[in-house]
Each structure stands twice: as C-alpha cells, then as structure tokens.
C-alpha cells in the first residue's frame, strides 16, 4: 500500500498544482461563492492545494477564512463555484460512495440516545457490515482511542475529551483513507487538548490516514502537521504552505525547542498577527 511519495517542497509562490496529480487529495483553482441576501460572499478564491497520501496537513487561519469551507468541499458536502476537487484522481462523490471520508467535528456531534458502542456502530450499520464483524471493529477502534470499558455509557456521561475520542473512533470505524477534522479539540481545555494531540498523532501513525486538520491554533498546527497551509480571510486564499520538518515522534516538550518556536514565529508572521 505504501506509495513512494515524491516530497515536493511548496513555497508560497508555487502552490498551484494541477488536479491530475498522483496526490491523494487535489484541489485545483477552487472558488467558492455563497449567495446571501446581502449579496455574494467570496469564501474561497483560486485555492489550489495538493495533499499527499498519509500526510497530516493543517489548515491554519483566523475564523472566516474559509478553512471549514475547504473541508466541506473535500467531504462533498458543498460544490465549488469553480474548480475541481479530486480524491485519488476520482470525484469527491465517488470517494464518498467508496466510504473514503471520515468526519470529526468540534463538539463530537454524537447521537445522545446511542451508547458509546452504538455511536461507533452507526456508520457500520449504514455500510451494512454484518453484526459479527461490526462488533469486532467496534472493539478494535474503541481500544485504539482508549475508550475500552465505556462501551455501554451514553455520551452525556463522558467528559469532553472522551467525547472527542468517541468522535474519532466513529470516523475511523469504517476505515476511510481520509480523515477530515474541523477544529476537533477547539472546545477542550488546554491539558486535555495536549493529551488529545499526542493521542491523535499516535492513532495517525498507527492507522496511516491522510488527515486534513482545521485549526486556528498556531501551536496545534506546528505540533501536529507535516505541512501547514496558512489561509488569509475574505476571500480565503492560500498565503503560504509551510513544510514542518520537526522530527517525529514529537513529545510535548518539543514545543520548548528552538525549531518549534521558530516555526511558530514564521506561522504567526504569515498570519499577520506579529
């Protein structure tokens, strides 16, 4: 399964990549205009981006820069006004039908009347996976995210961090190649957030997924990513794509290193907050 990924360093001035790339996810000249009563809102303008298989990419930008819109376009929840999105060279709809896309939201979005196991089971039921296999998968994925022993609990009995673990377990349950995460740790306290970041990297390394992670936290983007896509607001444009060369595995105290601080500073400059 391991493909030889050509590692191309992308600078801000050569981010435009043709759609028919060998990359996993390709956005080509994407424009997204929302029609509202007060007129057209240009959410995204000529965004081109290529995300490699098994890469961890963070979309970093202030709120309103269209980073969640990009996620919605990759998930096929919205259609671009212009441009194309492909996953593995196929259309987004085809990828969706092949169940290649897993979604994780900021506040987990669990079904409150379903237990932990049943929430993980939901996509498996939709995919018509037989009960036996379903149970085995639920068990495996709950172990992966550290929710063993909580199978019969209901979401309201879980802490914020555990809810997020459950949201991740549900997204991983049907083994999609792409994990789209929309500020998944945005509502968590700082300590839980650190733990979840470590956990996510462990899960990502174990399961070898392509992750597109939306965040407005510079520290989070620097800590997690292989590459950081910095976006500017209204209309959303790519300001820069920064390679994150920090070595893996990454312990929490890596954030004290000079390299980490330099990367954070670079990102902050690009965001225009310094």
């Amino acid at each position, binding site marked *: 399964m391991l493909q030889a990924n050509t590692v191309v360093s992308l600078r801000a001035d050569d981010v435009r990549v043709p759609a028919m790339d060998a990359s996993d996810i390709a956005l080509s000249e994407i424009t997204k205009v929302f029609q509202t009563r007060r007129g057209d809102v240009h959410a995204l303008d000529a965004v081109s981006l290529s995300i490699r298989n098994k890469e961890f990419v963070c979309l970093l930008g202030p709120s309103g820069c269209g980073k969640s819109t990009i996620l919605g376009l990759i998930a096929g*929840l919205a259609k671009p006004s212009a441009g194309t999105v492909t996953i593995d060279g196929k259309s987004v709809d085809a990828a969706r039908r092949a169940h290649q*896309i897993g*979604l994780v939201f900021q506040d987990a*979005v669990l079904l409150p*009347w379903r237990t932990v196991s049943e929430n993980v089971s939901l*996509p498996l039921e939709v995919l018509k996976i037989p009960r036996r296999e379903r149970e085995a998968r639920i068990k495996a994925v709950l172990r992966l995210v550290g929710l063993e022993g909580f199978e019969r609990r209901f*979401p*309201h009995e879980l802490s914020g961090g555990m809810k997020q673990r459950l949201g991740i377990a549900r997204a991983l349950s049907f083994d999609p190649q792409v994990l789209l995460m929309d500020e998944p740790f945005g509502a968590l306290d700082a300590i839980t957030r650190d733990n979840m970041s470590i956990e996510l990297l462990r899960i990502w390394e174990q399961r070898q997924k392509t992750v597109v992670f939306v965040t407005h936290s510079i520290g989070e983007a620097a800590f997690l990513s292989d590459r950081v896509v910095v976006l500017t607001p209204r209309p959303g444009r790519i300001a820069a794509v920064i390679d994150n060369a920090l070595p893996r595995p990454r312990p929490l105290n890596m954030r004290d290193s000079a390299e980490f601080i330099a990367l954070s500073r670079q990102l902050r400059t690009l965001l225009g907050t310094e």
Partner: protein
Amino acid sequence: MTDILEGLRRSSASIGTVVGFILVWQTLVMLFHVPTWLVPAPTAIWAEFVKQAHLLGRHVMTTGTGAVGGLVIGAMTGLVLAILMVQSRILARILMPLLVIDQSVPKLALAPIFVIWFGTGMMTRVVIAMVISFFPVVINAIRGMTTVDRRVNDLMATISASRLDILTKVQLPNAVPYIFSGLKVAVPLSIIGAVVAEFMQSDSGLGYVVLVAVGNVNTPMVFVAVLLMALLSLSLFAALSLAEWLVMRGRFNYLAIENDG
C-alpha cells in the same frame, strides 16, 4: 420507602390544595343553602356516584374506547403524515396548507356532519377523536424529525446513507420525545372529541350521561360524569407517562439531565 415518603412530602402542597378546595366548596354550599340543582355539594356528588356506580362503568368504557381508538388511529395517521412530509418537500408543500386549514376549521362544529356520515355508534366517536388529536402529533413529530443537528446530516451524507437509514437511525429516534409531547396534548383532546360525538346523538357514554342527567335536572350526576371524564383523561395521561418513562429511561436520560442542569 423513603422515596414514597419523599414523594408524599413533595406532593403534600398539591394534595392540600385539592382537599382545601373541596372543603371550601362544601362549606360555601352549606353556608348559603345553595340548591342542589344549581351547585351540588361534594357530598351530594359523592352520594350520587355511589348510588349509580354500578351503571357508570359501561359508559366510562364506551367513551374511553372511542377516545383511545381515535387517539391511536390519529397518532398513527399523524406519524405517517409527518414522515411523508419530512421525506418529500413537494408533499410538505401540498399537505402543510391542508393541515393549517384543517386546524383552523373548528372540527367540533362539524360533529353533526360526522353523525350524518358515520352514524351514532362508536365510529363517530373514533372519527371525531381522531381528527382532533392527530394535529399535535403531526406538528411535534415533524419538529422532532427536523431539529436534527445539521452536522449529523453531514455525517450521514459523507457515508452515503440512504433516506431510510437517516429516517430510522436519526430522524425517528430524535423525534421520540417530541412525539410523546404531542400525544400528551392529544389525550384530553381525544376525550373531548368522543364526548362531543356523544352529545350529538347516542345511547351510551359519559356525554350521553350528561345529556340525560341535564334532562332530569340531576345536577349531581352531571358533575359525576364530568369528573369521570377528567379521571379518564388523567388515567390515559398516566398510562402515557408510564409508556414514555419506559421508552425514555436510559436512552433519553440526557433530556432529564439537560432539564435539571
């Protein structure tokens, strides 16, 4: 045991209010010598009830059967309509105005026509109870099925879930508490519907008892019948609450917690 005592302690104010109300009523009637045909004393009503109790069971059953029949058929019709309207926007656009018109028409005023159409038997009771009780179920079921978090729909869309999956795994479970709210509104309405049918023309039921008692100027009996209607309504409500508790406990505990918090 402590639960029962705790329950008694908490409901003591309500029980006290009812007892106090009856005592004040009794005292006023006795103090001012109000004639029984105008306002009977609680003791007179009780005496009448004891005297006629053996005859009343049949009438309670008849009215109850009509109301429950109408409620069940009305609720099922309402649920099916709600599902159809949530599934199809065109159907929703066609049916919604009809529903609103239906709700604006004072259906009880149509009771004489229902008698012409369905006769004076059980059928008319059931039909009137049904047309009057299905509306709150439709409205609540639609609200329950459509107040799903948009992102849950997104989630279902990204795994290419079918409409049936969305209906059975998301929309209907989400609507369960709402449907129970609708049913609770519908219960007293269904009794009113059945009784109105009996007011038209019938030979049994609590509505019929009221008509006969008024004809005989037997005011205590009128009160007995009306109190029995209230009791019937309360028992149906209690049965529904029990069903609700059985369905909701565990899975829908989060609602209780939200309300407490």
